[in-house]
């Protein structure tokens, strides 16, 4: 359970921070198997605290991932509209808002709140209404979410999936409401554990993004981690000494035994090591500071490379590399040597040229085989390993599958070309391929 301190954004009169934050709270009760009463109770407590804080807040249920558009998985280059010119208007409306909220909203009250891991707050120049209408999620969505999490075989994969969905949801809320930055409350200890866990999960390539101060992989919305210098112990003491109100809700792995998931194991390992060697966490943290985000090609002007479908990092897999285990893992291109059969029912290539016709026949196995391979192909190594624990992709929210379909269609020509080469490399037993080539 993670505690986050909302530092005195209004109280720091010496260096008053010049942005207007809002708070997003995600209700993950359905994923954790909480009863509706327990969720409602936790939500009520949370709202009480949020109201005293005085910033605009949004409570979002995790079930809303089923309503997300596929565009949430795309990376936009520019900032959301309305940042520059609207500043004055934003400040005006903020001042009005403060006036309306009265003295309690102003900087006097300890604007410190604590929540669990799902509390993160965006900062913006475009404040919203103090309250967002919350529509309780429908039973069907809750059911679908439970089904999704129940179908995942291991706790590790569940946690990773939860993390991904949570990120997408926060991103969506941030984009909808015009927030340009999202601040999360990961502490030093938490990030050190995350670093080691990421290494164990095969996400070593993205450590700099996962644990660095700022994470710009989403393009327009930047995720920053201002609390990364404070250890959990400091945070806990601070919260206690300053009587910061907190709400605790059980998470996915509450009361799980130590070896239930890689996250738990790593957490136990790090904390135990820290007990005996007090500089463990800070050493790991300092090491993470040295990680540099090197661009893959070193060319900023070039077209952005393909990105992972779930975590949106630049793909670290070279699909043409058949010498490694990754190549063997992705039989998508290499085993497409099935003889092309009857003409396609739906035109999969928009250009109806003769040349394309030939590879269309050969590449159609791409369409015919299950979409699972199509989705897997677009994931980074870490996400692929997680997907192994998900026996079927059906329970996934529709936006993920839709985006996967879209991307595979747009990169079809590449698959076509590879298919052509493949057919040349193999015995020329495919007549159609030869006739297809002009």
């Amino acid at each position, binding site marked *: 359970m993670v505690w986050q301190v909302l530092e005195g954004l209004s109280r720091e009169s010496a260096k008053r921070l010049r942005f207007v934050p809002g708070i997003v709270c995600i209700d993950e009760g359905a994923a954790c198997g909480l009863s509706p009463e327990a969720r409602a109770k936790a939500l009520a407590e949370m709202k009480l605290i949020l109201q005293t804080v005085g910033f605009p807040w949004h409570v979002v249920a995790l079930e809303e991932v089923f309503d997300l558009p596929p565009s949430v998985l795309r990376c936009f280059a520019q900032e959301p509209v309305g940042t520059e010119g609207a500043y004055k208007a934003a400040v005006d409306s903020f001042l009005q808002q403060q006036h309306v909220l009265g003295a309690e909203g102003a900087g006097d009250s300890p604007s410190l709140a604590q929540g669990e891991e799902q509390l993160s707050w965006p900062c913006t120049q475009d404040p919203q209404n103090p309250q967002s209408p919350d529509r309780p999620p429908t039973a069907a969505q809750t059911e679908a979410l439970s089904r999704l999490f129940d179908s995942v075989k291991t706790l590790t994969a569940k946690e990773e999936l939860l993390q991904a969905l949570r990120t997408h949801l926060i991103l969506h809320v941030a984009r909808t409401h015009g927030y340009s930055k999202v601040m999360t409350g990961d502490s030093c200890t938490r990030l050190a554990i995350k670093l080691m866990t990421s290494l164990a999960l095969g996400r070593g390539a993205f450590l700099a993004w996962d644990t660095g101060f700022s994470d710009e992989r989403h393009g327009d919305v930047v995720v920053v981690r201002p609390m990364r210098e404070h250890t959990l112990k400091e945070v806990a003491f601070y919260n206690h000494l300053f009587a910061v109100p907190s709400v605790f809700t059980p*998470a996915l792995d*509450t009361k799980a035994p130590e070896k239930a998931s890689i996250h738990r194991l790593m957490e136990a390992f790090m904390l135990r090591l820290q007990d005996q060697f007090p500089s463990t966490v800070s050493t790991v943290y300092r090491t993470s500071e040295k990680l540099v985000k090197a661009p893959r090609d070193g060319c900023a002007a070039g077209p952005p490379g393909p990105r992972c479908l779930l975590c949106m990092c630049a793909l670290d897999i070279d699909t043409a590399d058949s010498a490694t285990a990754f190549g063997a893992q992705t039989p998508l291109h290499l085993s497409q040597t099935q003889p092309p059969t009857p003409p396609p029912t739906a035109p999969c290539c928009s250009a109806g040229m003769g040349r394309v016709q030939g590879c269309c026949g050969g590449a159609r196995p791409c369409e015919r085989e299950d979409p699972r391979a199509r989705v897997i192909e677009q994931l980074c190594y870490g996400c692929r390993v997680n997907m192994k624990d998900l026996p079927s992709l059906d329970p996934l929210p529709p936006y993920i599958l839709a985006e996967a379909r879209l991307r595979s269609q747009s990169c079809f020509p590449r698959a076509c070309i590879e298919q052509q080469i493949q057919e040349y490399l193999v015995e020329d037993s495919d007549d159609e391929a030869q006739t297809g080539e002009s």
Partner: protein
Amino acid sequence: MAAPLSVEVEFGGGAELLFDGVKKHQVTLPGQEEPWDIRNLLVWIKKNLLKERPELFIQGDSVRPGILVLINDADWELLGELDYQLQDQDSILFISTLHGG
């Protein structure tokens, strides 16, 4: 030869889940031969207060790493950890900083 002590034991950060959700416990420790220290208190808690999953709270002789102990709002490391002798009306606070429980 220790007189009965009255101390307040409090749990935070999720540790209260192991104690039926009750955060504050005002307990009276019975008089016994040796003076009460944190070590004995932990054994007493395990026997009397802990409702489930003792391994999530206590590990061996001490608390599980990741659980902070504050004695009268001070870190127990400054007061001798397990060997600190309890006084009457002390306040012991256990805060869990762990992800689960």
